[in-house]
């Protein structure tokens, strides 16, 4: 066990949307260099928890202790959050990842462009560098968005259903890159709805149900009769598809 406390810890956290409490008494930490799957049926508070962690939703009680600087935190929302009519190319989108740390007024230097090209090659989208975002497929767009977080050198990455509407080849590429990022020490939290993807990608899982969170080992999902009580598990993953 790592003696050093994790970068991201939740202390008796209570989060609400409007006047309705969505999550309460959330205590736990997300391991550095690990991929944590966030699972639960619709409406159990996955997006609320992500908003709370990103500092976009103020806690009603408790706190989020995050020792990752803001410029190293990235959120990959569902694709629809992007304005696809905006006149921007794939390369330009990837390069925006350097803005938080590079500053608002400075231009890019050769090293930035070189790094951008390396990232696009790693994600297999070099040939799309100059293509407008609006002309990309769902999978290509998702690769470009992950490219932005690589450019950002994110140490905390939250992904909301990154494999939805994405082709199988892109899923493999994204999983490989995410695993590499975790090996390099990033804390990764990913909302998943697919048991097979969960067992292949995640190191641990947080199950949200009834307004509470429970940290469980991934093996609980992979093996029949795992450590979770059956009613708790079935309630938590209703709406989660098994492959």
């Amino acid at each position, binding site marked *: 066990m790592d003696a050093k406390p994790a970068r991201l810890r939740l202390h008796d956290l209570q989060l609400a949307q409007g006047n309705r409490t969505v999550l309460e008494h959330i205590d736990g930490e997300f391991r550095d260099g690990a991929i944590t799957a966030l699972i639960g049926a619709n409406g159990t508070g996955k997006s609320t928890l992500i908003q709370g962690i*990103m*500092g*976009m939703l103020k806690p009603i009680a408790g706190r989020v202790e995050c020792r990752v600087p*803001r*410029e190293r*935190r*990235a*959120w990959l*929302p569902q694709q629809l*959050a*992007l*304005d696809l*009519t*905006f*006149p*921007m*190319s794939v390369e330009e*989108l990837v390069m*925006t990842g350097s*803005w*938080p740390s590079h500053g*608002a*007024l400075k231009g890019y230097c050769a090293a930035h462009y070189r790094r951008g090209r390396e990232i696009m090659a790693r994600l297999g989208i070099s*040939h*799309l560098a*100059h*293509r*407008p975002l609006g002309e990309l497929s769902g999978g290509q767009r998702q690769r470009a968005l992950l490219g*932005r977080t690589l450019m950002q050198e994110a140490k905390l990455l939250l992904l909301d259903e990154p494999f939805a509407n994405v082709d199988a080849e892109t899923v493999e590429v994204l999983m490989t890159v995410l695993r590499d990022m975790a090996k390099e020490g990033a804390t990764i939290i990913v909302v998943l709805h697919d048991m097979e993807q969960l067992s292949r990608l995640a190191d641990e899982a947080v199950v949200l149900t009834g307004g509470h969170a429970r940290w469980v080992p991934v093996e609980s999902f992979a093996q029949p009769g795992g450590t979770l009580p059956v009613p708790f598990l079935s309630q938590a993953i209703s709406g989660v598809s098994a492959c």
Partner: protein
Amino acid sequence: MLGVLLASLHEWLVAPFDYGFMRRALVASLALSLAAPPMGVFLVLRGMSLIGDAMAHAILPGVALGFLFAGFSLPMMSLGGILSGLLVAMLAGSVSQMSGQREDAAMASFFLISLAAGVMIISLGGSSVDLTHVLFGSVLAVNTTALVLIASISSVIVIILAVIFRALVVECLDPLFLRGQGVRGSLAHGAFLGLVVLNLTAGFQTLGTLMAVGLMMLPATAARFWSKRLEGLIVVAIGIALVASTGGLLLSYHFNIPSGPAIILLAGLGYIFSALFGSHHSLLQRLRRRAAPLGAETPELH
């Protein structure tokens, strides 16, 4: 032959600017042409093309009050316009937030109130000639004080726009990315609306409150037919505005027609020409549309 041609060109393009009032009008128009189109490009990209029109009406009561208390004092009228525009923008935003009404509906309500209030104030304190001057401007009457004011405001707008440029781009493309960095999108949005008000205030002396928005929007909407890149849109829009301003002034001089409408109509012609013959999504492009064969070079943004 060449000499005659050069003399003719000189008479058409250069000689009008021998007059001080034409030189001042040109410099004022060119300053506005550098500052206004980038704002228009962002308004178009944010789906807020009509907000500029609404804000143009919003500055009217302030301009009218400035006129009522200080006569044709451009600094006072400009100050009034800025305060009035910002007040209306804040009121519309507040009503929208408190009542849940869409911002465009609240804005439409307030700009109609503003227009009526502005016309009422000017009519009570002046004459129909004054009203015409405020509504439609008079670029040929720009004096040195007005010129300095217009150039200063335009410079401030360009500088602030450069500072918040990346925040604006991110807010347009992906507001969640901006929020994730701890920057509230509403700050960039508010600063941007403030710049729109400033711009319209600078423009009302030359083009009037009603037409100042034309130099902002028409070049921006026309540019969409020529470029798919943000930088390209801004450069093309500025180019169209510069040509429309210079050309409008020359037409106004040679044919003795009102200068403000001449500038805006020329920009309008630019829009119609672009819609017909532009390189992206124009009528001509749609008629000649061919899909690139499989394996062909990837079309690049330009």
